[in-house]
Structures are given as structure tokens and as C-alpha cells.
């Protein structure tokens, strides 16, 4: 199956048209194993894009590659028009990217509040949300601000992980399986949060297992298989694409 | 006949560590001076010197010696400081039937239990130190002793011999603590000595160790209630510690650069090369090489047994030794001197450090026949 270029579906995008993230011919390796083979995708400012795919299809790897967290990388990754393929991770972050990893990455040696305060502001101009705003959004966190990060319940840890990157002032968010293992109420809260963020103009790339969670939120979808993009379509095309998705993902 | 057409002398000593000041490179220089004074050759056969650093390790010393004898046709070995290495080398030399001149080491085991027909124990030994310095300190009223002892052959030997002297003069020994050679911090040993409440803290160590022990004693005020007795002190140690810290100390030695015109003349030549006055060991190195070469020249061969026989027949006379001779147990008998360190005010010129108290005649200075445990001297 050949890689599908995303440019064909640009017409259907929400947002203001500027390209927030554009990936061309991305290849990535973990040590000797070649995981990503020519990934192409692009995301416009203000869009919510979801990467679909089976376990091991390479979605997490794509996100990690954007952050420079895989082994070797090749190709082109432009963030806000700036080429970042050769930059170290922390500089990539400074181009306004926030990454919420699959495994949450809550630090056990830090309290909830320290976890929250940890990420520095990425730039002088873009201030992230204040702690008060965060606490308004997730009252649970306020309640447990002094307990050790990993003592939080799974759901609370997930909230913390998401909240943490909102503090940095990043405008492009990479969210990997943020709904995993959460109670429905919290999943609903997350959905509301993403809608809010979108209305504030954030750009979001999500990886989701939970199709029913992702479907109503996303403007566009990419489907990955064996380290390649094999399908891409806008949410308006969702109905007609269902048979394909069924074949590819069994959803 | 000269084997291999060269007279090859080996010198194995501490070139880099605690004892390198006392002997080390200076000793090697002294031996070179002796070779030069012999004209560099005997009957047209060249004299060669090889030098190695044993790092105070018996294993290095003995493998080096063995290799030289086996591989390089070494004719004679001069052993430098450190009794442990000396005992090891003596065995090898005896096995290879080659003369072994030991200068720096003090242990009396070299001429007692472990005497060999090839050992020539040249400069001093712990018996002489104990009977010189040790008995002088007891005479001055130091009756109760505690030892700080270097934990190897030399320290043990010195402690043992001094203990005998102290006990014989009616003193008591309250105990001892052993420290590793080249110890870095003596404060805890000093405090142990202090808690024994002895009048005299006997330092059965030497070189850098002695220097550090004296310093630690001053730091913790140990000297307020007890007196230090350095049992083997060399001029270099006094130089490092300064007269202020050492004045009044007794020491027993075989040679002092300022003892007479002859010694001063030789010391001057040495000073030009090394920019330091020679220690008695460095003078001994020179003398030993000289006496060996003289013997070889006299009989025209470097055969080990013949040289030893010649040496036993001779009297040694040079700027170091007067009328000295080699006893069957391997001891070279010569006079020893008891000195006292001058007060800073009494020191008139550089390196003017010692006052002679008395001369101990050779016959009294070293182990008498009755006490000898050497089977070769019965």
C-alpha cells in the first residue's frame, strides 16, 4: 500500500489555514529496527487530528519522532514552518510543542504540584495556563496537590499528565492515548477539555485506541499501518470510510 | 675472566615512593660515581649499571632480580631501601650464587635467620639503632614505651630489637600499633599511642612515614604528655621536618656528610649533581660499589664465589668506612655514631644539622656472636 499524501484533504480542514506541523518522508529507527517508513502528514493550526491504527502500527513512534525521542530520524518535520529534524528534543519543545506520553510519565519523586510546576514556559511571549486555571479545570488535582505524583489514581495521573503540558504555553499538543484506562466520567471531561482547547486555537494531534472518544473530536483522521500512513480523510468522510476502517482496524 | 665481558651491577630500590629521598635516584647517582671513579672499566671490560624501582614490593624486586640474573648475566646486585624487598632479593642472589650488597634495609633477619653466603649487609641494622638511639633514650629517663611500627619486616625488626633494649634497661613496653607502609594519615595511630599513656612514643618507621607521624603528633598535642623517639632518622627527614620540629632528637647513623674532610669532599661532588647533601645510605651505595669493584679488580674475575672470598679477606677503607670488614654472617662491621639534632640557633650553614654525641665501635654496634642466629657463623 502506498503512502497517501495528506494534501488532497486540505480543503476540508478547520482552523485558519497556516500549517502548524508538516511531516514529509519521515523515517525512524529504534536501534537496528526500522519502524517508520516514509510517513507524510500535515496539521493546520487549530485543527484536531487523530492517528488511528493497530497496536504497533507506529503511532506512538510518530509522536516520539516529532519530539526527537526515537533513535535515528530522517526526512523532514516542520513545526510552524521551521525545520526541526536536526534539533535536540528540548529545542523542538521550544517551538511550542507539548507532548503527553502514552505512559503518562508522572514523576514519583515529585509531588502533584511539583509535577505540575515542573515544565518551564517555552517562550517569553506564550504563557501557559496558570495553576489556578488548571485547578479550576481539574478540581481533583487541587485536592491532592501535595501527595506524591505516582500515588494518584490512574485517572488523576492522566489528568495531571495532560494538565502539565498546558502549563508550558505549547500551542501544538501531541496527546498519546490520553483516554486509556480512565473512567467514563473522566473521558467525558477530557472530551470537553479538548473541545475547549480547540476553541482557544490550540492545535492537537491525538493517538487514540478509543475510537468512540476520538471520532466526534477530530477534524481529520490518519490511519497508520506498519509504520506508514495508509489512509487519510476528514471527519465529514467518516461515514463512507467506515468499511475501510473496519478492514484496517476492526472497529 | 669477566663473565659476558662486562661487569654488570644491578641496583633495585625505591625510586618513587616514601624512601626515594633517602636512597632512590641519589643512590643510583652515587653508584655511578663509584663506577666513574674506577675508570668505567676493569681490565678493559666495561662496567655497567642497571637500575629498577621495586615500589616497595617484594614481588617486583625478586622477579626483577631473577630476570636480571637469568637474562642479563648480572654479576652483582645492590639492594636499596626496604627490608621486605631485601630479604626477597637475598634469596634470589643466593640461589644464583652472586654477591648481594644490601645498603638501605635495616632488618637484622638478613644476617640472622636468613643469612646467606652471598649477602653483604653494608650500612646499618636495627640492632645498631636499638642499641644506639634506643638505649640513649632510656638512659635519658624514658622508661615506658609505645611503638608506632611500619607493618613490614623492617618495622617488626626494629620494634623487636628496641623492645629488647628497653626491657634490658628496666623499661616497659605498653604496646604497639602497626601502620601500612606509606600511610597517609597518622592521626589515629598517634591517638592510639596517646591513650596508652606511655612516656615515649617510639617511631619504628622511616622516611615519609616518620615525617607524617611527627606532624600528626604535633597537630593533636600528643607531644604535651609524651616524647617522640625516632628510631631511624635520616638527614633528609630532618631537612623536611625542619630543625624546629626535630631539635634534640637522638639518632644513630653510620655516616654524616660533615663528619670529616674526606666525607665533605665526596659530599661536595655529590651535591653538585643532586643539589642535596647525601644521606648515609647514598654514601654506602658508593662505598659498596667501590669495594666490590676493587675486589673484582684484585682477582681479575667476577665469579660470585671468588669475589665473596676476596671480600672476606679484605679490609674496607674509603670515605665511608674505615677498617671495616665482612663477618661470616654477612654483616659489614664498622663504627656507628650517635648524634643529636641541633637547635635551630646552633645551625651555622645549610645542612648543618647534627652534633655527634659518641662513637659506637663496630664490635659493640652490631649483633654479637652469642646472639647471632646465623648458621654460617658458628
Amino acid at each position, binding site marked *: 500500500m502506498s503512502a497517501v499524501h495528506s494534501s488532497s484533504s486540505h480543503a476540508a480542514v478547520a482552523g485558519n489555514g497556516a500549517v502548524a506541523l508538516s511531516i514529509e518522508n519521515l523515517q525512524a529507527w529504534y536501534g537496528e529496527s526500522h519502524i517508520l517508513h516514509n510517513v507524510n502528514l500535515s496539521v493546520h493550526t487549530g485543527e484536531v487530528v487523530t492517528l488511528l491504527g493497530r497496536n504497533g502500527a507506529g503511532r506512538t513512534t510518530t509522536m516520539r519522532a516529532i*519530539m526527537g*525521542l526515537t533513535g535515528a530520524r530522517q526526512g523532514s518535520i516542520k513545526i510552524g514552518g521551521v525545520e526541526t529534524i536536526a534539533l*535536540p*528534543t*528540548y529545542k523542538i*519543545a*521550544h517551538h511550542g510543542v*507539548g*507532548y503527553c*506520553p502514552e505512559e503518562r*510519565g508522572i*514523576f*514519583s*519523586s*515529585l509531588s502533584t504540584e*511539583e509535577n505540575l*510546576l*515542573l*515544565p*518551564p514556559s*517555552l517562550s517569553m511571549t506564550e504563557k501557559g495556563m496558570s495553576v489556578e486555571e488548571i485547578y479550576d479545570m481539574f478540581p481533583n488535582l487541587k485536592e491532592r496537590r501535595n501527595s506524591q505524583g505516582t500515588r494518584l489514581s490512574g485517572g488523576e495521573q492522566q489528568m495531571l499528565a495532560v494538565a*502539565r*503540558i498546558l502549563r*508550558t504555553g505549547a500551542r501544538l499538543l501531541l496527546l498519546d492515548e490520553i483516554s486509556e484506562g480512565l473512567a467514563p466520567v473522566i473521558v467525558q471531561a477530557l472530551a470537553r477539555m479538548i473541545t475547549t482547547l480547540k476553541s482557544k486555537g490550540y492545535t492537537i494531534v491525538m493517538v487514540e485506541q478509543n475510537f468512540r472518544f476520538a471520532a466526534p473530536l477530530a477534524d481529520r483522521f490518519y490511519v497508520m499501518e506498519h509504520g506508514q500512513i495508509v489512509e487519510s480523510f476528514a471527519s465529514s468522510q467518516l461515514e463512507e470510510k467506515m468499511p475501510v476502517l473496519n478492514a484496517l482496524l476492526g472497529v | 675472566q669477566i663473565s659476558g665481558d662486562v661487569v654488570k651491577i644491578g641496583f633495585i630500590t625505591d625510586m*618513587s*615512593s*616514601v*624512601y*626515594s*629521598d633517602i636512597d632512590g635516584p641519589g643512590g643510583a647517582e652515587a653508584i655511578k660515581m663509584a663506577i666513574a671513579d674506577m675508570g668505567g672499566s676493569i681490565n678493559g671490560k666495561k662496567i655497567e649499571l642497571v637500575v629498577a624501582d621495586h*615500589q616497595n614490593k617484594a614481588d617486583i624486586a625478586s622477579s626483577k632480580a631473577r630476570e636480571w640474573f637469568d637474562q642479563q648475566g648480572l654479576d652483582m646486585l645492590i639492594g636499596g631501601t626496604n627490608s621486605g624487598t631485601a630479604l626477597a632479593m637475598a634469596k634470589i642472589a643466593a640461589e644464583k650464587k652472586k654477591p648481594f650488597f644490601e645498603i638501605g634495609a635495616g632488618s637484622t633477619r638478613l644476617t640472622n635467620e636468613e643469612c646467606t653466603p652471598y649477602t653483604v649487609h653494608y650500612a646499618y641494622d636495627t640492632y645498631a639503632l636499638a642499641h644506639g638511639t634506643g638505649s640513649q633514650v632510656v638512659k635519658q629517663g624514658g622508661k615506658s614505651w609505645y611503638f608506632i611500627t611500619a607493618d613490614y619486616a623492617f618495622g617488626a625488626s626494629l620494634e623487636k630489637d628496641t623492645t629488647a633494649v628497653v626491657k634490658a634497661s628496666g623499661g616497659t613496653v605498653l604496646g604497639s*600499633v602497626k601502620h601500612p607502609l*606509606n600511610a*597517609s*594519615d597518622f*592521626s*589515629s595511630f598517634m*591517638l*592510639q599511642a*596517646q*591513650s596508652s*599513656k606511655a612516656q615515649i612514643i617510639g617511631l619504628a618507621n622511616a*622516611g*615519609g612515614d616518620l*615525617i*607524617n607521624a611527627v*606532624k600528626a603528633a604535633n*597537630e*593533636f*598535642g600528643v607531644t604535651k604528655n609524651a616524647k617522640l623517639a625516632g628510631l631511624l632518622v635520616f638527614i633528609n627527614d630532618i631537612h*623536611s621536618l625542619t630543625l624546629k620540629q626535630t631539635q634534640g632528637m637522638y639518632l644513630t647513623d653510620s655516616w654524616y656528610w660533615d663528619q670529616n674532610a674526606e666525607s665533605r669532599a665526596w659530599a661536595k661532588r655529590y651535591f653538585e649533581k643532586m643539589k642535596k647533601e647525601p644521606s648515609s645510605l647514598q654514601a654506602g651505595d658508593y662505598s659498596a660499589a667501590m669495594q666490590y669493584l676493587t675486589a673484582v679488580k684484585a682477582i681479575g674475575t667476577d665469579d660470585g664465589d671468588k669475589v665473596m672470598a676476596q671480600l672476606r679477606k679484605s679490609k674496607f677503607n674509603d670515605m665511608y668506612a674505615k677498617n671495616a670488614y665482612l663477618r661470616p654472617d654477612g654483616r659489614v662491621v664498622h663504627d656507628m655514631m650517635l648524634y643529636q639534632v641541633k637547635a635551630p640557633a646552633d645551625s651555622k650553614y645549610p645542612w648543618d644539622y647534627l652534633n655527634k654525641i659518641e662513637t659506637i665501635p663496630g664490635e659493640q654496634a652490631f649483633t654479637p656472636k652469642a646472639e647471632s642466629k646465623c648458621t654460617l657463623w658458628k
Partner: protein
Amino acid sequence: MEIFGIPLQALMSQLLLGLVNGSFYAMLSLGLAVIFGLLNVINFAHGALYMMGAFLAWIGLTYFNLNYWVMLALAPVLVGLFGIIIEKTMLRWLYKLDHVYGLLLTFGITLMVEGIFRSFYGVSGQPYSVPDALSGATDLGFMVLPNYRAWVVLASLSVCFATWFVIEKTKLGAYLRAGTENPKLVEAFGVNVPLMVTLTYGFGVALAAFAGVLAAPVIQVSPLMGSNLIIVVFAVVVIGGMGSIMGSIITGLALGVIEGLTRVFYPEASATVVFVVMAIVLMIRPAGLFGKEK
């Protein structure tokens, strides 16, 4: 006055010595722990760098007439810079490999550094005198307290606690702690982790050099002073468990004191007591007193 037949004077003095040694253990194991946390490297060279600190003090005084106080500030900086060079040119390439390679590399560095100093200065050690301001001793009646030793304990405790404070109570410390757990993620937040790693190594190593300068007047400045110490410090690390900063400090001090007491009551065992304690701790708590079983 006597306690168990030991004069109070001697007992207290030995305790002081123990405390002094303990301060060195604490500073060195602290540095090891900080470095291990972020770099995953057991820095065998720690001892050699401690020695380098002491030697720099000596060299400064002997050749450049820079006094103790100048060198106390300068030597850690110089050694820290040296550490930074090591990290940037060598250690950097090993992070992805098994921990043992870091140990082997730093072992090689140790040999080289020691060898170089040895070839210049021999092994017998150089004397370094106590700075004038701290020379002499205070007679406390029950013991003579050498002023310099008191200063050593004071200085190293202050440095240890300052380090503890920075790591446990400040934002920078939060980065360090987080970096210890998951450096990649911290970097993804925009923190310059590579720089932090470099500086951490530099700091850990500077701590060792600081200890070295403190030690210079107490013991002979010799090329081997570090390697003999570092193995004891390893034992301290195994006992403490490298889990917490405070743990390193407390374990270090405690073992110094235990050693001091052993010297009073059973001197023969004083060289081995730390290792015996290690063996006992291993049998009872394999992860160490403050360590977490991973």
C-alpha cells in the same frame, strides 16, 4: 576521665577523626549518587578527581603561590571543567549502553589520571600545611580539637546540606529529580537536559575536588589517596542504597563514626568494619538502608 578504660581525650579525638572521614565519605557518596541518578554512570574516577582537587591545591600553593582559600574555590571549578570535558567527549557516548561501560571508562580515566600524577610526583605524597587562619588547636579540656579538623566537618556538612536543599527544595532540584526518573520526558518539556547532565557531572566532580582540597592539609597529598578511598565509598553507597540524598549524607557520616569507634575498641578491624557492615546490610536489606528495590 575514662570510658571503658579509654581516656576521654582519645575517645573524643577518634570520634572527631571518624567524623572527618565520614564527611569525606558523605561528600563523595553524595556526588556519586547525584551522578548516578542522572547519568546512570558509576563514576569510578571520583576518587581520582578528589585526588586532583588536593593536588591542585598543592600545585597552586607551590608553584603559583595561591593560598588555601583561593584554591578551595578554584580547584573545584577547574576539576569541574575537567569533568565537563570528560562528559562531553567520552561519557556522552555510553549512556545507551550497559552501566558497566561507564564504570569501565571511568576506571580507565582513573588509571590515566593517577598514572600521570604518579609520574610527576611519585607515590610518597606531598605535605600541605594547614592554612594559617586555622592552624593550631583549641584545648577543650577533655580533648585537643585541631581547628582545621573542626573546619573540615563544618565545611563539608554545610556543602552537603546545601546540596540537599538545592535538590530537594528548589526548582532546579525538581528538574534533577525528574531527570533522574525520566530524562527524555523532561527534555520533551523543553528543559536542556544534555546541558543539565553535563553540569551535573561537573558539579558532582567539583564536589569531589572540594573534598580533596579540604583533605589536603589532613593527609598527604598523594596520587593514590583517591583510589583507596573510593572503594570504601562504594561500600558506603551499597550500604546507603543511593536512593536518597539525605541517605548518602547520613550513611557517610555514620560509617565514619563507626570506623572511629572501631579504632578505639578494636583497632585491628578498623580497616574492614565498613565492609563488614556492608555484608550485614546486604544480608538483611539487599537494597541498602535507603534504597528502593527496583
